[in-house]
């Protein structure tokens, strides 16, 4: 009976450490395994026949499908500063394009004052390239790029969209049925906008992969909660992306809120539900492009440039959202007027 200590790469949450422990303990010759998220190390006790180096290779084979690697030596942290030479101009150009898009005044394209399902779809399409892009699109980009970076699969991304569309159907129906709009008040709006901006800021800095300290700031679910999620599936987190998708119903996006107001005026479950669902479907093309696009690119050779570009864009949008939230609260005067 011996105890070896290995370094683990690619861990980002408590569920990851549980998953690795579970996989290792299932091996017949392993007695116990304990993973420390803080130090990125795993202590394994058992009967080893092979050298630590060979064992590390064996272990890696078991966990690499989840995006982790196990090694004896600590992997040197590579910041990849060279990627910035491309990432900075690309991201600045994209942000510039975003400003141009806002100035283009897509909102004036909507001329009808009544909402058919067709109009709801068009409003969704416009919303996804308009002001809502800063908050919903920014959140999707930051989450999907982070998830892709940590080895998430298409399932995580799909669940987010399923959650979003399903959530819009049910909550839209409830708004129609109850006649009680689920708008949040001014303070809640400002607080939510601020929280989303901060989440994006942390995720964006993580995507840059330059600083180490933000790893500690990452939002980790409590272990007990994670255990349930992990036991359900060994591959991915099911619940989190689904819940985030549903949660986008409440994001402070003007288009979403005006559609909710319309759903409210219908006074029926089906009409409210369908209006909101069609609207969500309208936003799907752009959001799906963002999430599945980042998933694809995560396996390309130039992924380093992509993650840094995404990081810069997410940070810029986070700062924009933060400035907007503060302006709405009346704390600072607005910086932009599109």
């Amino acid at each position, binding site marked *: 009976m011996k105890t070896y200590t290995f370094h683990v790469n690619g861990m980002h949450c408590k569920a990851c450490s549980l998953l690795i422990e579970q996989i290792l303990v299932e091996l017949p010759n392993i007695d116990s395994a304990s993973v420390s998220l803080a130090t990125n190390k795993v202590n394994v006790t058992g009967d080893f026949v092979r050298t630590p180096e060979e064992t590390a290779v064996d272990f890696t084979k078991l966990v690499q499908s989840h995006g982790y690697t196990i090694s004896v030596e600590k992997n040197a942290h590579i910041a990849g500063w060279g990627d910035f030479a491309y990432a900075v101009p690309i991201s600045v150009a994209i942000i510039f394009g975003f400003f141009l898009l806002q100035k283009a005044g897509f909102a004036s394209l909507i001329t009808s004052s009544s909402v058919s399902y067709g109009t709801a779809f068009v409003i969704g399409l416009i919303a996804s390239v308009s002001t809502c892009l800063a908050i919903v699109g920014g959140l999707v980009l930051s989450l999907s790029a982070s998830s892709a970076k940590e080895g998430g699969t298409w399932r995580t991304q799909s669940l987010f969209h399923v959650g979003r569309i399903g959530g819009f159907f049910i909550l839209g129906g409830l708004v129609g049925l109850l006649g009680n709009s689920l*708008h949040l008040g001014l303070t809640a709006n400002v607080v939510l906008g601020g929280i989303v901006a901060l989440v994006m800021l942390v995720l964006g800095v993580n995507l840059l992969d330059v600083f180490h300290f933000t790893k500690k700031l990452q939002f980790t679910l409590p272990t007990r909660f994670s255990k349930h999620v992990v036991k359900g599936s060994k591959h991915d987190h099911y619940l989190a992306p689904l819940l985030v998708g549903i949660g986008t119903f409440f994001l402070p996006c003007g288009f979403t809120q005006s559609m909710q107001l319309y759903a409210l005026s219908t006074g029926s479950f089906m009409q409210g539900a369908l209006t909101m669902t069609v609207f969500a479907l309208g936003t799907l093309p752009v959001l799906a492009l963002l999430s599945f696009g980042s998933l694809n690119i995560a396996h390309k050779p130039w992924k380093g440039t992509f993650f840094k570009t995404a990081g810069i864009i997410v940070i810029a949008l986070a700062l924009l959202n933060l400035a907007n939230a503060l302006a709405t609260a009346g704390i600072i005067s*607005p910086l932009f007027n599109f």
Partner: protein
Amino acid sequence: MNKSIFVSVAISGLLIGGAFWFVSLGQNDDAGDTSVVSMIDGKQVIDISAKGGYSPRKVIAKAGVLTILRVKTSGTFDCSASLVIPKLSYQKFLQPSGTEDIIIPAGKAQGTLQGLCSMGMYNFQIIFQ
């Protein structure tokens, strides 16, 4: 390597400069509109339209007078329908089409009143003089 960093910094600088120039276009040279201010029955009425932003963006009105801010929407589904006026603690979701009267008491009709949409992307100012 050094050359590519230099090119990268130059392009970024140019784009950032361009973006600021672009955003500031027609923002500060706006002297302020007085044509939308009218006096009806001793009350000051300010007409502002909300669709894809607010128009006019800067209004100059008389200070210390009971004022009605009349916001008109027509097929407005974007953020500008979600109007916030922090100084008045006012927040309302305007109907897609219609008009909304917001009463500004004489005591509040002082200085600059800032109105914006709940996401903060569109805004307008009323300057009471």
